[in-house]
């Protein structure tokens, strides 16, 4: 949880793989330097599949995945780092908080013995201090999102994978969560891969946007140049 010694400049992402999904193949083939990447495109264009491949929840048929020089998957070299060793903070679209644990135990799941100060810092960053003893079932959509984000961050991830994290959040809260995300990225040095179908969110979060259509990256670049 300590800030890095130098300001966070960028991380290198290498996504060169192919993964069959339904009637098409998700096949990104690029290397990008960015603090955060937006995966932008309509539903079913393969955004979530890319996140799941990075997380290790789906296995590509071929190719190579690396984040910041760390190879997570390489078919040719028979490298397939187990999900639990990938050090990724994954927040799926349906959030999936553990329903049988309260907020505190959800957030601290990855590292129950980490110092309380870390939890307190996260809780205040994400506005969760009043929610820690609540049951998950009693939370609103936006609260769930923030708890899921805190849970992913508490593991001290090397990269954050966020799937439509603001879909269930009301407009008033969106700005605050986006600001918190950018603070996390820059203060903690955690790069972000951000799935969205909102051009505004992509612009707000990402230095690089990848536009996907039917599994192919049809445009990549600065959000203002490539997004509608």
């Amino acid at each position, binding site marked *: 949880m300590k800030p890095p010694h130098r300001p966070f400049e960028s991380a290198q992402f290498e996504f060169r793989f192919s993964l069959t999904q339904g009637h098409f193949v998700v096949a990104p083939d690029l290397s990008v330097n960015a603090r955060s990447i937006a995966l932008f495109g309509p539903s079913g264009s393969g955004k979530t599949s890319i996140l799941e491949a990075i997380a290790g929840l789906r296995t590509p048929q071929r190719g190579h995945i690396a984040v910041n020089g760390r190879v997570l998957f390489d078919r040719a070299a028979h490298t397939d780092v187990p*999900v639990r060793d990938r050090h990724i903070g*994954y927040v*799926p679209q349906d959030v*999936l908080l553990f329903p049988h644990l309260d907020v505190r135990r959800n957030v601290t*799941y990855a590292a129950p013995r980490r110092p309380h100060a870390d939890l307190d810092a996260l809780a205040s960053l994400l506005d969760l201090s009043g929610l820690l003893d609540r049951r998950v079932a009693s939370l609103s959509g936006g609260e769930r999102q923030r708890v899921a984000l805190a849970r992913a961050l508490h593991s001290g991830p090397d990269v954050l994978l966020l799937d439509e994290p603001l879909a269930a959040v009301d407009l008033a809260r969106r700005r605050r969560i986006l600001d918190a995300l950018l603070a996390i990225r820059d203060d903690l040095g955690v790069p972000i891969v951000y799935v969205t179908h909102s051009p505004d969110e992509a612009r707000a979060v990402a230095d690089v946007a990848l536009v996907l259509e039917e599994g192919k990256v049809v445009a990549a670049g600065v959000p203002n140049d490539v997004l509608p």
Partner: protein
Amino acid sequence: MSAEILDIALFTSVAALAATAVMLVPGVALAWLLARRRFPGKAVVETLVSLPLVMPPVATGLLLLWLLGRRGPIGRLLETAGIEIVFTPAAVVIAMAIMGLPLLVRTARAGFEQVTRRYEQIAETLGARPWRVFTTVTLPLASRNILAGALLGFTRALGEFGATIVVAGSIPGRTRTLAVGIYSFTETGQDEQAAALLAISIALAFGAVLVANRLARVD
């Protein structure tokens, strides 16, 4: 109520509890295997586990008698170790466990099948090793069904008759259970004792159903 009757009630309850404890770990493991794994011979295992549910209990008892008897494949092994099972309280517990197991496995299996795999995947992304995923996510999320299955197995054990009488007999003060006792007392015209056991059976069943319904309600 005589001491004999109370002894029978106590013995039956303790034996049924012991049977539940005995079936719990293998039952939950089997339920998880059947819900989550593919392996050669799965259909055979599935069928074997459910067999006591559809076979006449007396037939299951006879099978156990052959297996555990002195000349049976398991009984012979145990005898060389100086252990005798048939017509002992241990036989009661085994008969009860075998008869209760299918109910536990089927109910717990449904519980495991209802646990969304994705909760387990999230736990993995958070660095949890398989055993931790199982104990902190899978098991708690399936726990309602496991408890319900254990209770079903326990109530089945409480009422077990057919297998018990074949493999453990009806030895007063040793292997006589509620169900077997009701039969024996009725056979020998001891209607008062039979009626007392009947009353206890009703009370135990009532309590078990009450707890089961409570389990189903609690959130």
